[in-house]
């Protein structure tokens, strides 16, 4: 069987280094398979998150040869195996151990956002009527598996560390799914502008490029939200209109 070397980042917040592991590789393997084989045979205490092994749960996010990836969806035959494959944790979050990072910040961000608030039901049985056409674009946002790879790659978080002022692309997608939900009645634009820091996003589209669910984060979620914010807060004619109509 063919062999390949995996250069895995081992350690915790205090101390860490890359460790090379050589292991057997076979047809169809993904990086997560190699990590598991190393864990079972050479490094029992190696920390890695995973669940579904099919790109559905968003647990196994890490960086492979410097690229933010789901370990379970990264095939070895797409990587040059004549050199070591580098596997390291996401860099935009504090390290816990090895490939596992502390992503709890993301859960706190979501908790602070205004929840879904539906209009009263359309029908007596408590249901709503919605056209498929009107929900297609929100279903795109709802495909999000919360892998946080987009958060990992966004320079506002990764380089500028603005976690207190900027919620990151994942939560703009979330905000968009609520704001554009046909039966939601809440308005989140004030928060998006002020607390959530949508203004920091300068549309580099790095988030869209790494999204394993192929959600068009920037074009379909962030830009429309930015436009709504502009309409509400900066458009003088619309503002005037609001003053008169209220």
């Amino acid at each position, binding site marked *: 069987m063919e062999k390949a070397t995996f250069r895995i980042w081992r350690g*915790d917040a205090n101390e860490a280094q890359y460790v090379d592991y050589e292991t057997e590789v*076979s*047809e*169809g*393997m*993904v990086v997560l*398979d190699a990590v598991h084989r190393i*864990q*079972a*045979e050479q490094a*029992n*205490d*190696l*920390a*890695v*998150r*995973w*669940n*579904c*092994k*099919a*790109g*559905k*749960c*968003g*647990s196994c996010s890490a960086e492979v040869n410097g690229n933010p990836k789901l370990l379970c*969806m990264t*095939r070895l035959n797409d990587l040059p195996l004549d050199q070591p494959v580098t596997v390291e944790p996401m860099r935009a979050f504090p390290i*816990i*151990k*090895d490939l*596992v990072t*502390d*992503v*709890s910040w993301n*859960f706190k961000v*979501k*908790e602070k956002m205004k*929840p*879904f608030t*539906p209009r009263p*039901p359309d029908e007596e*049985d*408590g*249901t*709503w*009527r*919605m*056209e*498929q056409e009107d*929900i297609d674009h*929100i*279903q795109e946002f*709802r*495909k999000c*598996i*919360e892998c946080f790879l987009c958060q990992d790659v966004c320079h506002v978080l990764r380089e500028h560390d603005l976690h207190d002022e900027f919620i990151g692309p994942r939560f703009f997608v979330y905000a968009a799914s*609520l704001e554009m*939900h046909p039966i*939601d009645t809440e308005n989140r634009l004030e928060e998006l502008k002020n607390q959530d820091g949508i203004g920091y996003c300068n549309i580099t589209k790095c988030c869209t490029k790494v999204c394993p669910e192929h959600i068009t984060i920037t074009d379909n979620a962030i830009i429309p939200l930015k436009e709504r914010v502009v309409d509400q807060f900066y458009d003088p004619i619309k503002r005037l209109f609001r003053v008169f109509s209220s």
Partner: protein
Amino acid sequence: MASYETFEHDVLIIGAGGAGLRAAIEAAADGLKVGLVCKSLLGKAHTVMAEGGVAAALANVDERDSWRVHFADTMRGGQYLSNARMAELHAKESPDRVRELEAWGALFDRTKEGSILQRNFGGHQYPRLAHVGDRTGLEMIRALQDHGIHQGIDVHMENTIVSLLKTGDRVSGAFGYEREKGRFKIFSAKAVVLATGGVGKAYKITSNSWEYTGDGHSLAYHAGAELIDMEFVQFHPTGMVWPPSVRGILVTEGVRGEGGILTNSEGNRFMFDDIPELYVNQTADSPEEGWNYTQGDREARRPPELLTRDHVARCIVREVHEGRGSPHGGVFLDIAWIKEKIPNAQEHIRRKLPSMYHQFKELADIDITQEPMEVGPTTHYIMGGIKVDADTQMTCVPGLFAAGECAAGLHGANRLGGNSLSDLLVFGKRAGEYAAQFAADNGEVALDDSAIEEIAQQVLQPFDNPEDGDNPYEIQAQLQDKMQELVGIARSQESLMQALEEIQTLREKADSVHAIGNREYNAGWHTALDLDCLLTVSESIALAALERKASIGAHSRDDFPEKEEQGAGKYNTIVQKSQDNTMGIRREPVPELTEEYQEIIDEMG
């Protein structure tokens, strides 16, 4: 003295899949202090992986559907070993549970009239599964999660419960460790709900993740609860078989619901060759009729590919055994053929089955809109589990409740697709409600400190075991091999006796596995601790399988091909810990169906 932190809750819920989240939301509704513990991050439980849909007789697509038909379908699918009262509650309440999800933000696919769309699935007479493409579980767990986080529930993510705590007869809390630092946590509670999911990791080929080590089954068993019908393990007929690293990953039944067909190496649609008695009247007798059914023709009957999972899995095994399999030991599942029938087939498939398209494209280099998939059976679900009261979901241990896949009763000998997601919602809610009531009606319980100390010691044992002790991963792999080989789709007295012996040997080895490193996020240590649960559920499956001397539903015995044992009547198997700490097994007769239930079955069958 071991050091630990203590958390006090009125109701503690173990597991944050659909069942646990729904239970937590319900229990928190009355302002009680509710704790929710899970092994992974929130939103990553198995429920997220469910693809096909959630069964509920909403009758949006076919107005002939009703709770009575759903009830009859569930009972027939379960070969009449299901708890009829649970089947009734499930069929009656699931429509409301599904609608409620939309009030919490879920967005199911729509009919032309704008209501929730429903699709066909095996064993359901009418299109009944509410769905979102093939990512229904994600939609469901996200709706529950996003609603749940605003209900004042204390969530303890990445914490594993290793033992329940009892005070006298009553459950009083649970002992766990957090993964990050390996610190111990004690949870005291007036009522505890188990919602830990299934046991698939006991087998080598499975659609299940590392979490499915049967923890809830094992925790309940050690606390004195009964496990019912553990022999019924569902082998889903269509798992991926190639490449080896993805073997077992699920291919949703939705593929067949949308018109996908099964063929063998001779190009024959072999499912037409063997249609069971119970279903002859409901099955198409030509490919044309089958196709029409999948396209919503109400006069047509379903294609044989949509027969129950146990049957389809056995037919696939037969084809492979008799030399008519695909190159990698499965059969062919073809959805691409529908281009003969509809003009924009390629786009249609990608829209209806986006994640299947994605999964095969990225993991197997196969374009399912152009070529057939190779599929074979994979361990998927356990119908058996913790025995509970149908209405309240309480076990025989006061204060201990169970819901979702780890509980049992609804599915009998075989579960219909889509009936699990609805099970989680209906009985998750009930478990939450009655656990809250129990907590309100019964006062505090003091914890037993000496028991805690003892558990702490056992949990650290793998670090203290000699360094030449076995590697925990190795023991896990050996167990999976044996269960696959000896307690799989085809079983016999001989294979099961041998399995029980192997399990004993592995148990001895498991006692001396060695964990390297320290307590911080140490996967090897965690695997060592999961072994006890895996061995307990494996033993209970093998023991129950030995007890049932018949081939019914998901359980087949080569040495007893008949559906019923002569003169034994219908019974459930019950596993419970005996006085001497060994595993006991007994039978309990299935109660006669009431006249009312029998009438519904006769009318709707």
